[in-house]
C-alpha cells in the first residue's frame, strides 16, 4: 500500500544498493539479496454471503531464509500490490537480522477490504490462503503473522486450516495467536514497547533525561498506544497524537500542551483508531490538521502509522527542537527526507530497528509454540528489552565508529549478517 506514488520495492532496492556499495558486496550476493528468493501469487475463491463467488488475489513472498524460516505478516488491503509485499518481505529480512533473531524475511497479503466483508467471508479468505500455500509455509519454512487489517482471529482460522491439512497440532506455524491458544504474553505490547526501549537508549546516549522530554506521535493504533503508554510510564510527556478519521477519510492531530491522557483518549476511540474529535475538545484537546504532529516543538517524533509520511516536502517543517525520530511504522521516511534528518542532526532510529519488537516477540511466540511451553510476561518483556537494547547499541556503535547515518548502520549490520549466512551456506 503506497499512498504517495512511491514504489516501495524500488525504494527498498535502492536502500539495499546503497548499503551493498558500503559493504562492497560481490555481484552474486547483490543479485541474490536485491530480489526475493520465492514468490507465490494466486487466487482465492470465496463464496460470499449473498451467494456470489469472488476471487481474491493472494501473495506470499519469501525474500531470504538463509538465517532461518521466513517470517512476516499477512496484510488485507484493497490496494495491496506484489511490489509492496516484495519490499516488505525484504525489510523483514533486514529487521530479523538487525535484532539478531534466527529468521528470514517474508510477507503476504490479500487484495481485499475487510470493512466490506463479513467475518465468515474473511474466514474463507484465510482458509483459502492457507490451502494455496500449505506445502510452502509452516513452522520450519515460513511463519506468518497478523499485519494490517488482520488479527489474532485470522491467525487462528489459518492455523486451524493448516493443522487440518497436515493432521496434527503445529502452533509454531503462525504467530500473533491469542494468549490461551498458543499466543505469547506481551505480544500486544511488544512493538510499542520496543520502540520505547530504543528511545530510552537513544536518550541516554544523547544525555537527555526522559522526564524532561516531550513527544509527538503519528497514529493511534496498537503500536502508538503501547509506545505512548510505556514512554509516559517512564516519565515522558506526549503532547500530540494524530489519528485517521474513518468517516472523514482524513487525518487529524490532537494536541494538549500539558500532555495527553492515554486512557482518556482510548475511551473515545473507535475500532479503527480514530479519536472522536467532538468528545476530545471538551477534554482540552486542540484539533489540528493531520500533519501538524510533525511540526510540534518536541524532543521526539514517533511516526507510528503508515509508510511515506515524512517526505522531502514536509520534512523541513520538523521543529528545530526535535532530537530523535523513532520510526514505529514501516517506511515512514523517504530517502529524500532522510537527507533532511541528517542536515537537522536528528538521531533517526530506523524502522526495522525501532519497530522490531513485534517480530522479536513473534519469534518468542514461535519458540514457545514449538516447545509447547509458555513463558510468563516478565520473561518475555525482559528478553525483548535485552534484544532491543543490544540491537540498538550495535547500530549506534557502528554509526559512531564509521560515521554512518543510523539507518545505514542498521542496514550494514543486517545485510552483512544475511550475506554471511548465504556465504556460509555456499549459496554465493
Amino acid at each position: 500500500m503506497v499512498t504517495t506514488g512511491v514504489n516501495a520495492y524500488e525504494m527498498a532496492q535502492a536502500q539495499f544498493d546503497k548499503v551493498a556499495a558500503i559493504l562492497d558486496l560481490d555481484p552474486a550476493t547483490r543479485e541474490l539479496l536485491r530480489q526475493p528468493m520465492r514468490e507465490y501469487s494466486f487466487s482465492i475463491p470465496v463464496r460470499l454471503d449473498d451467494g456470489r463467488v469472488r476471487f481474491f488475489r493472494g501473495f506470499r513472498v519469501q525474500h531470504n531464509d538463509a538465517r532461518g524460516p521466513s517470517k512476516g505478516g499477512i496484510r488485507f488491503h484493497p490496494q495491496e500490490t506484489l511490489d509492496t509485499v516484495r519490499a516488505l518481505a525484504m525489510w523483514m529480512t533486514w529487521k530479523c537480522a538487525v535484532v539478531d533473531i534466527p529468521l528470514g524475511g517474508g510477507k503476504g497479503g490479500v487484495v481485499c477490504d475487510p470493512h466490506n466483508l463479513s467475518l465468515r467471508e474473511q474466514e474463507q479468505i484465510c482458509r483459502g490462503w492457507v490451502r494455496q500455500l500449505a506445502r510452502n509455509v509452516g513452522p520450519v519454512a515460513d511463519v506468518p503473522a497478523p499485519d494490517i487489517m488482520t488479527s489474532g482471529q485470522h491467525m487462528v482460522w489459518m492455523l486451524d486450516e493448516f493443522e487440518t491439512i497436515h493432521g496434527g497440532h503445529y502452533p509454531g506455524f503462525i504467530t500473533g495467536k491469542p494468549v490461551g491458544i498458543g499466543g505469547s504474553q506481551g505480544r500486544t505490547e511488544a512493538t510499542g514497547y520496543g520502540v520505547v526501549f530504543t528511545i530510552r537508549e537513544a536518550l541516554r546516549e544523547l544525555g537527555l533525561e526522559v522526564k524532561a522530554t516531550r513527544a509527538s506521535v503519528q497514529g493511534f493504533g496498537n503500536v502508538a498506544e503501547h509506545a505512548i503508554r510505556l514512554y509516559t510510564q517512564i516519565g515522558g510527556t506526549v503532547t500530540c497524537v494524530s489519528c485517521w478519521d474513518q468517516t472523514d477519510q482524513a487525518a487529524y492531530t490532537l494536541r494538549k500542551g500539558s500532555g495527553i491522557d492515554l486512557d482518556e483518549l482510548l475511551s473515545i476511540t473507535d475500532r479503527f483508531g480514530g479519536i472522536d474529535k467532538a468528545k476530545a475538545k471538551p477534554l482540552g484537546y486542540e484539533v489540528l490538521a493531520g500533519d501538524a504532529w510533525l511540526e510540534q516543538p518536541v524532543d521526539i517524533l514517533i511516526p507510528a502509522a503508515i509508510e511515506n509520511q515524512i517526505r522531502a516536502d514536509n520534512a523541513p517543517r520538523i521543529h528545530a527542537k526535535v532530537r530523535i525520530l523513532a520510526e514505529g511504522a514501516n517506511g515512514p521516511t523517504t530517502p529524500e527526507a532522510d537527507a533532511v534528518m541528517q542536515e537537522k542532526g536528528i538521531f533517526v532510529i530506523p524502522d526495522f530497528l525501532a519497530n522490531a519488537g513485534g517480530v522479536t516477540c513473534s519469534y518468542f511466540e514461535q519458540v514457545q509454540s514449538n516447545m509447547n511451553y509458555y513463558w510468563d510476561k516478565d520473561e518475555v518483556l525482559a528478553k525483548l528489552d535485552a534484544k532491543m537494547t543490544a540491537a540498538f547499541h550495535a547500530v549506534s556503535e557502528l554509526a559512531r565508529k564509521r560515521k554512518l547515518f543510523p539507518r545505514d548502520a542498521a542496514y550494514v549490520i543486517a545485510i552483512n549478517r544475511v550475506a554471511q549466512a548465504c556465504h556460509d551456506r555456499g549459496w554465493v
Partner: protein
Amino acid sequence: MSGPGEDVPRFDRRLFDPSRPVSRIGDGALGGKARGLLTAARVLAARGAELELPGLAIDLPALVVIATGVFDAFLDRNHLRAVLAEEPSDEVVSLAFRRATLPAEWLGDLRAIAVECRRPLAVRSSSALEDALGRPFAGVYGTKMIPGNQPGSDARFRSLTDAVKFVYASTFFHEARAYRRAAGRAAKDEGMAVIAQEVVGLRRGERFYPDLSGVARSYNFYPAGPASPGEGVVQLALGLGKTIVDGGACWSFSPAHPRSAPPFGSVRDLVDSTQSEFWAVNVGPPPPYDPMAETEFLVRAGLAEAEADGALRGAASTYDPRSDRLVPGTSRPGPRVLDFAPILVQGQIPLVDALRRLLAVCADALGAPVEIEFAVCLPPEGRVRLGFLQVRPLLVSEDAVEVSPEELEGARVVVASTAALGNGRQAVEDVVFVEPALFEARLTPAIAGEIESLNRSLVEAGRPYLLIGFGRWGSTDPWLGIPVRWDQIAGARAIVETTFPQMNPEPSQGSHFFHNLSSFQVLYFTVPHLSARAVDWDWLERQEVVARTDHVRHVRAPGPLVLKVDGRTRRGVVLRPEGP
C-alpha cells in the same frame, strides 16, 4: 529520610562493576537498608586507609538497589492496591504478586543481573518507612537468597523476579501489617525498595556460605563479665547470618575482651549451647519450586558437614572430655565446639582488630553508636575477605533514669531486676502475663497464639502493656521460651522474662528481636526465678481481669504502673500504683 536516590548512579547492566559499587534501578527512595549500604560505601571510600590490615581486605559486596518507584509502578499497573485493601491472607497476597508483571522498563535490567551473575544473590527489603522513622524494621520484611547456579539465564531470571515479588509481597503480610500498625503507620505509608547483593561466601560442594557471619555493635545492651556497655559486642556464627538474625545459638564476645567466653556454667554447658547447625545457600540440585518460601534456596547443615567442607578452620575448638577443656582448632578428634577460638584466642586472622576499627570509624562517621553486619571468607589461599554488609545507627536512650538498690526492695515492687535492658521510664495500666500455675514448656507455641490475640485487641484499643512470661521471648526453639514473632507482642512497652525451674536459658535474643527492643525502646527485665525478689504474682492475680485465654491473663491495674530501667546500672523496677 532517604532522598530520591539521585546521588546513586543508574544501573548500567553490570553488577560487578568496580567503578560503581552501588547503583540503582528505577526512581524514588532507596529505603533504610540501602541508605546503610551507601553509608558503608562512603566509609570505605573515605577511610579505607584506616581499615587496612595485613592479610585482610574489607569490601562492600556488589549490589544494586531497585528503588521504590518500581514497587509503586508494580502495585499500580497490576491494580494490586485494590486486592490489598481487603487485607487478604499471606497466601492470597503471595499469589496475586506472583501473577503480576514487574514494570516493563526495568525488566531488562533485572535480566542483565540474571545473565551476568552466576553466584548467589541476597534479595532484601529496604523499607522507605524504616528510613523515614529512623529505625530499622528488623526481620519484618522478607529476604530471599537465590543460588545463581542454574545453568540457564532464564531460570536465574525467574528466581530473581520471584524473589523481588516475594519481598514486595512480604510488605503486606500479616506480620508486617501488624508491625506497622503498632508503629502507628498505614500500609500506604510504606514504600519498598529491594537490594540485590552478592552473597559473600565460598562454594563448598552443594553449599555456598561464608566461614562466619556476624553482627557487631559499638554499644552493648547485654554486657557480661568484664565488659562494659560502651565497649560494644560482637555476635559470630558459622555460615549465613540468618542464624544470628533468627536468634539461634551464636557466639557473643566483647571486642575489648575477645578471649572472654560468654558466662556458661561449665564447659559441658558451653558445648551444649553453642551453634551446632548453620545456614547455607543451596547450590546443589534445584529444590522443589516454592517461590514464596523464604528458605526455598537455603539449606541447614551440621558441624560434620562444615568440617568436611573445610569451614571449621577459624571457627571451632575441640572438646577434650578427659580434661574437660576446649582445645582450639580441629587437629584432634572429638566433639567440635564453635567458639571461634582460632580467631579470637589464637588470632589467626586480625578480625577483632578489623571490627574494632570498623566500629570506631563508622561510629565516628555517623556520630552515634552503630551496628554493623559482616561476613568473612577464609579462602584456602590469599587474603581474608571481610564483606561489609550493613551499618546503621543504634538507638540508645539518653534519658537519665535512676533506680537505686533500695528501690528494688520497696513495698510497691511488682518486678525487680538487676539485669534489665534499655533505659527510660514508662507507665502502663494493662498487664498480660502467662499464668505460672498453668505454664508448661510444651505449651509455648499455643501460648504465643494466645498472646497474639490479646496483643491485637490491646493495639486496636491503643493501650500499651507490660508483658510477663517464662523463658526466652522470641526464641526459635519452643523449649527455650515462648516462640513469638515481634508482631505478636508489638504493643508491649515493657517485657519481663522470668525463668522457670525447667526453663532456664541464658537471656539472648536474636538480633531482630533485640533490634525491635531497642528501636521501639521497649524495657526488658530479666528475673531469675531463684532471685530474692521474683515477680509479685499474688498482686497480679488480684487485679481486675479484662480477658483470659487458656494460659494467659490480661489484667488492668487501678492506676498506672511505673516502669523504670537505669541503663547504666541495669537496675529495673516495676512499681504498682499507690493503694492496696
